């Protein structure tokens, strides 16, 4: 790819949305923005542990924004990350301190700066619940789905790596695993409602 040590916003976005060098892109985000994000938390009644938790969630929300095509580089990564981080931290503070005035202030700021964040957070909550169902799948299923959807490997590569007779067998197994996972979702009312709610704004 011939990138320099510090990637541009465009390079980071391409790496994430194209599932190409995702880990390196995330590292670039940490190197470039952790200090700024942490500083915000520390200057606003938080400690280092708060900062670590908030920034981790910020990164996940940011990745989800790219994954769902809600962010395509219209503004700088710095301002988007800062907005998400601020939003999550204010929500945390709001939970900790239930002062009405503060609540109203935070809500106003939140809506003005990152309008999509509450929807994204709802999705993230759905993903978290779905992950618990995902853990109930067999090891082979989990590995297969991870390799195909996250590692972006082809069925041929997965078949070779995981010992399936051929890529068609791997493909059939993948379908079976997906159905099993979706059946579990269908059987979980809370999750189903949450997903339906999130899907209300989904594409």
């Amino acid at each position, binding site marked *: 790819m011939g990138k320099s040590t510090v990637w541009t916003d465009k390079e980071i976005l391409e790496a994430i949305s194209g599932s190409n060098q*995702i*880990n390196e892109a*995330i*590292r670039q985000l*940490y*190197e470039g923005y*952790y200090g700024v994000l942490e500083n915000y938390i520390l200057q606003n009644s938080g*400690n*280092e*542990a708060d900062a*670590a938790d908030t*920034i*981790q969630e910020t*990164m*996940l929300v940011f*990745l*989800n924004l790219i*994954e*769902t095509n809600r962010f395509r580089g219209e503004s700088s990564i710095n301002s988007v990350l800062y907005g998400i981080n601020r939003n999550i931290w204010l929500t945390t503070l709001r939970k900790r301190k239930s002062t009405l005035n503060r609540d109203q202030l935070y809500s106003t700021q939140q809506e003005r700066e990152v309008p999509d964040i509450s929807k994204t957070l709802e*999705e*993230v909550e*759905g*993903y978290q619940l*779905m*992950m618990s169902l*995902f853990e109930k799948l067999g090891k082979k299923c989990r590995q297969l*789905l*991870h390799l195909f*959807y*996250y*590692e972006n490997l082809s069925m041929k590569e997965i078949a070779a790596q995981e010992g399936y007779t051929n890529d068609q067998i791997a493909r059939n197994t*993948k*379908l079976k695993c*997906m*159905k099993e*996972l*979706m059946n579990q*979702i269908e059987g979980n009312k809370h999750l189903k409602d949450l*997903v*339906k709610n*999130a*899907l209300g704004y*989904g594409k």
Partner: protein
Amino acid sequence: MENKYDDRFLLHYLDGMLDPSEKQLLEQEMEKSQVIRERLYLMRFTIRAIKFKGYKSSVNEIQHDFLQHRIENKSFTSVSTPKLEGKERPMQFWTKIAASLLFLCTLGYVLWLFQADGAQLYESNFISYEIALERGAGLQENQLESLYINGEFKQMFQVSAEKTLEEFESFELLLLGTAALELNNPEEAIWYLQQIDSDNTENQTDDYQDEVDFFMAMSYLKQGAYEQALRLVQKMRSEEQHKYHSNFSWAEEYSIRLQNML
């Protein structure tokens, strides 16, 4: 119609495996069928959840490495990171701690000395006079000496009541002076000891002069007469051959000097 668009077909669509015509047909069908649309959205949500799980473990791992690297490089000041607690302290750190403790102890001692009054200096420096063994072997033991050795200080003054100062030998005067100090009577101690000092000056002798200097200094400290005490302490500290040369430290001398100035 909807049976054609089963889970396999929808999954192929989401995986980008349909040819353009099939893709177009499905998208048209989705416009009409809420069932297909909802099933497809649920499937897409599930795929995103699988990806999210991957993102989560990557972010976890990368954040852990990032913070670890930052701690190792000491590029930030930690406030409450538990991992720092197990960190090995360099030798320089412990040296600084030891130096600080030593400094604080010394400072405390010096401050104690500077604020110490005569009574405190008396208590920390007073030692009872002990009769030398060789003296007892060579000379016949007198009554005062026996009483002194037995610690019967009051009786010493009772048996001496009839005698005038001039009638006592230097050794007896010394015993009576130190006995008076043992009885917490510095004025009387000075009275006896001064007699030895005067006799020595007059006769140009130095009988028990070192003892006289020391016990008179102690008596003056007990009285709070710092000027006289300081003169004697300076004399003892300046004469290297003096028997009580090392009994007072420089800090104690300065402490007496300070008390004298107050």
